[in-house]
C-alpha cells in the first residue's frame, strides 16, 4: 500500500513539473536589468579580461567564490576526521584509529 502511494506521489510531481514547463509561455519581459547590463558593458574595460564569467566569479563577486572554497575545505577536513578518528559513542574518549 505504501509503495503505491509513494509511486503515485512521484508520478504526480513529475507530471506537474513537466506540464508546467511545456504549457507555459516563457518568462515575462522584465525590461532592462541594471546589474547584468553593467557586467556586460563595463566588464572587460574594468578587469582587462575577455572572459566575462571569469571576471564575475573572481572580481565582481569574489566573496561567493571564497565561500565555495571554504565549503570544499570543510568537506576535506570532515572526511579526514571520519577516516582517522572514527565515529564515537557518547561519553567515550576519542583516539586515533587511522594512522
Amino acid at each position: 500500500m505504501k509503495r503505491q502511494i509513494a509511486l503515485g506521489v512521484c508520478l504526480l510531481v513529475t507530471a506537474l513539473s513537466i506540464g508546467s514547463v511545456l504549457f507555459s509561455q516563457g518568462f515575462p519581459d522584465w525590461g532592462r536589468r541594471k546589474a547584468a547590463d553593467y557586467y556586460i558593458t563595463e566588464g572587460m574595460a574594468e578587469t582587462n579580461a575577455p572572459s566575462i564569467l571569469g571576471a564575475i566569479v573572481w572580481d565582481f563577486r569574489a566573496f561567493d567564490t571564497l565561500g565555495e572554497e571554504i565549503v570544499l575545505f570543510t568537506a576535506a577536513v570532515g572526511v579526514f576526521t571520519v577516516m582517522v578518528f572514527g565515529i564515537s559513542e557518547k561519553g567515550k574518549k576519542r583516539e586515533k584509529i587511522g594512522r
Partner: protein
Amino acid sequence: MDLITRTSSRIVALVILFFGIYIILHGHLSPGGSFPGGVIIASALALTAVVFGIKKAEMFIGERTAHIVEGLVALALCIMVIFEFFIRKMLLPLGTQFQLFSAWEILTLNIVGGVMVSMALILIIYLMIRG
C-alpha cells in the same frame, strides 16, 4: 594491472596533467578557471594511484604534503580575497590585453584557487583508498 594499461597510463597521466594546467592558466581568456582545472589535476593523480599503487603516487605529492599545503593555501586565499581592493589597485595596470599574462588579478586568484581545489581532492582520494 597488465602491461598495456601500465604503459599507456604513463603517457596519459602526463597529458591530463598538462591539460589541467592549461585550463587553469587560461582562465581569463577561455572557459574554465580554477574549479575544472583543479579537478582535472586531481584526477590525473588518481589515475596513477589506481594503476601503479599508492606508494608510487606518493612520490609526486604525499599525504602530509597535501594536508599542509591545503591549509596554508586556504589561509592565503582568505587574505587575498578580503584585501582584494588593494591588490586590484596594485596589479591591474600591468600587461597588454588578450595575452596570456594580462589580467594579473584573475590569473593569480585562479592559480591559488586551482592549487587549493586539487590538494583538497587529492587528500580525499588518499584517505579513501588507504583508510
